[in-house]
């Protein structure tokens, strides 16, 4: 049975700028917002938009991601025909290749797409925090009779040169594409989310593959080729919350924005657009008689005996008596021992912060660093982690890291 539109989700990104957090897992698997991983956002968007077939293209450190996606049941993507499929690079009779670029990753899975014989294919990115109705995007694509559409966001003009920009006419038709230009002619930044007519996509992927000089990339190769041929290309304006959480500071910031849905625009409390995730299955969290919890988000399994202010605590985090947590993102299973001070930082999963240790610091003049402690790290009693430090190995008691 043919599907109207299926999704291909690019989830191979290493996320090298998140370094300590992505040593052992791909960026889309990085925990976010108290009980989610980044990839929950595009996956939930798919299901909420009525897309029931998703191919997830993985490459870098796929183990955690594979296990997390499983059969897709948490997102209601365990389907008889369709559902979610993890698509790593594989060996073929003619040889085997890593995915050379974003376009090549899709090219290598043409046979997967053809099984569903879709009219449209939406290409998604697995490393953005965004709640978006892809069905509205498709409606636009059909209305414009487009062959290719790209979702764009208006960005401030002074930042425009950091993005891939779409120059459009009054009818949103794309006339020019500028990749990180010095002199931007537009402030419409590509979000890296595309809808293609499948026949067009297939044709251009095959042509691109045949070109030995191509980097096999959507932004650098496919889109310029489409433009050159004068295809019907349109820009779909998206004005909701969108964040590429590619750096420690943007990841921290996006988490903090979740705490302030009224002003930030990222509302994960919306019953009509739920974000689904694999559940921890822990009991409700406990706040003891002596604890302080202010302006924070706390998940199942947490035990709060200390002070937690303006922070996000993932499942099963323990904050012992006298410990202080402020402006912090503390991921699942981590323990903040008695008297420790954890501020303005990201503490990854299963970390132990020893007694009276200090991690990070509230911003002061010229010092806005977000300290980061990688997964599984033990920070010894009385150790000190400076506000710009990124720690991915155990820190001995009393030691200082800057």
């Amino acid at each position, binding site marked *: 049975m043919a599907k109207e539109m299926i999704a291909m989700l690019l989830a191979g990104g290493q996320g090298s700028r998140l370094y300590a957090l992505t040593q052992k897992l791909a960026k889309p698997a990085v925990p976010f*917002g*108290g*009980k989610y991983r980044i990839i929950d956002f595009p996956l939930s968007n798919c299901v909420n938009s009525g897309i029931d077939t998703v191919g997830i293209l993985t490459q870098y450190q796929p183990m955690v991601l594979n296990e997390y996606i499983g059969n897709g*049941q*948490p997102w209601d993507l365990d389907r008889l025909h369709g559902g979610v499929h993890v698509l790593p690079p594989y060996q073929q009779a003619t040889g085997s290749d890593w995915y050379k670029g974003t376009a090549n990753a899709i090219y290598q899975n043409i046979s997967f797409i053809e099984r569903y014989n879709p009219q449209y294919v939406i290409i998604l990115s697995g490393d953005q925090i965004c709640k978006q109705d892809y069905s509205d995007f498709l409606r636009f694509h059909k209305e414009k009779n487009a062959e290719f559409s790209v979702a764009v966001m208006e960005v401030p003009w002074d930042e425009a040169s950091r993005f891939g920009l779409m120059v459009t006419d009054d009818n949103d038709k794309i006339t020019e594409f500028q990749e990180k230009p010095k002199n931007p002619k537009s402030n419409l930044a590509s979000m890296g989310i595309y809808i293609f007519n499948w026949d067009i996509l297939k044709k251009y992927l095959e042509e691109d593959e045949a070109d030995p000089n191509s980097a096999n990339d959507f932004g650098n190769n496919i889109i310029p080729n489409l433009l050159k041929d004068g295809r019907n290309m349109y820009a779909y304006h998206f004005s909701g919350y969108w964040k590429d959480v590619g750096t420690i500071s943007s990841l921290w910031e996006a988490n903090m924005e979740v*705490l302030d849905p009224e002003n930030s625009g990222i509302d*994960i*409390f919306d019953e009509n657009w*739920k*974000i*689904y*995730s694999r*559940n921890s*299955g822990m*009991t*409700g*969290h*406990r*706040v*003891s*008689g002596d*604890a302080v*919890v*202010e*302006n*924070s*988000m*706390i*998940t*199942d399994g947490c*035990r709060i005996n200390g002070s937690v202010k303006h922070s*996000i*605590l993932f499942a099963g985090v323990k904050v012992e008596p006298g410990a202080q947590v402020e402006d912090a993102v503390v991921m699942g299973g981590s323990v903040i021992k008695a008297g420790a001070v954890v501020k303005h930082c990201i503490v990854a999963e299963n970390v132990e912060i020893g007694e009276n240790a200090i991690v990070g610091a509230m911003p002061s003049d010229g010092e806005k660093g977000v300290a980061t402690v990688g997964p599984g790290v033990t920070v010894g009693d009385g150790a000190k982690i400076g506000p710009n430090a990124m720690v991915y190995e155990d820190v001995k008691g009393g030691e200082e890291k800057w």
Partner: protein
Amino acid sequence: MVNANANALGIIFPNSYDSLVPELVGERLMASIPFAGRYRMVDFILSSMVNCGIDNVSFVVRKNYHSLMDHLGSGREWDLTRKNGGLNIVPPFSEKTIKQYTGRVEALASILRFLQHQKEKYVVMADANIAVNFDFKAMLDAHIESGADVTIAYAREELPPAAMNDDVLNKELYYTLNIRNGRVEKIFVNSKEPGVQNFSMNIYIVNKDLLIQQISSAFVRGYMYYERDILASHLDELNVQAFRFDGYLARISDMKTYFDENMKLLDESNLDALFSPNPVYTKIRDDNPTRYIRGAKAKNIMVADGCVIEGEVENSILFRGVKVGKGAKVKNCVLMQDTVVEAGASVEYVISDKNVTITEGKEMKGTDTFPVYVAKHQVV
């Protein structure tokens, strides 16, 4: 069979002791009463079975089982969506000639043919009025080793006040045991003996073939109660062994105990005891994390996901999706899922059922010994 699986099938009687908490079972049954923040009573015994390798579990339901069906679904959360075994819900046939069962004998008689066709050698039976992390494996091992016909689990407990109330005893039966050298010598029905007793947990392990034979012959004689009519009167011929349980258990025997057993979980040693060694599974709701907005105050509480807290909450259990508005005060309460306490309202010693709304500025106050109960979907 590989060691991971127990050679036993489970049967749960989800309606047992319904009449003890008439308020809570208005639209549900004992097994689906919300408990401990994000669970239903049945989750404990069912998870215990699954964790001990029992992967063929039948529910013999009697009435009001809509909420149970909704909760259990396909059994996926308990890993019971199986081709062989898995979850099996047996509703009563709605035919004129077959009336709803009253005792366990009739209930079991309705699934005799099913039992005959199961491959497991032993049958584990339990009610859902006790929340417990129970080691069925240890009990099964003990049952096999002792060569018993039937093994009964019991706890050293005082009988609850409800067991002293004649109105209650007209409807429900409690069993206490006389034990010598591990063997049950006498089963007392509705004893009013004071002090700590060998109080049956109504968890039984029986050899399946024996059970089938017992039920077939008891059914034709018109017997109703397994314990009273089959076990108690045959203790000299049957080898009935007792299995003592010393762990943590929460037994619901009236509204007061329902309230108290919830509150006891605010003590982390109790909470840890109930939720270890094995996990307890429940239906997933995909709630967001709980949000404490500026101005919220929290003291000695247990809160599930999906809550939004803007007011003050103290000594309370909040189930999933509870909202506490600005300036609202919640003290010594058990608020079930999706209860809304609007701005400025104040509640103390209140048990609110699902989807209750306490409107702006309202005050409600029960007492330690008599918490106020607000029924499902009520707007106060």
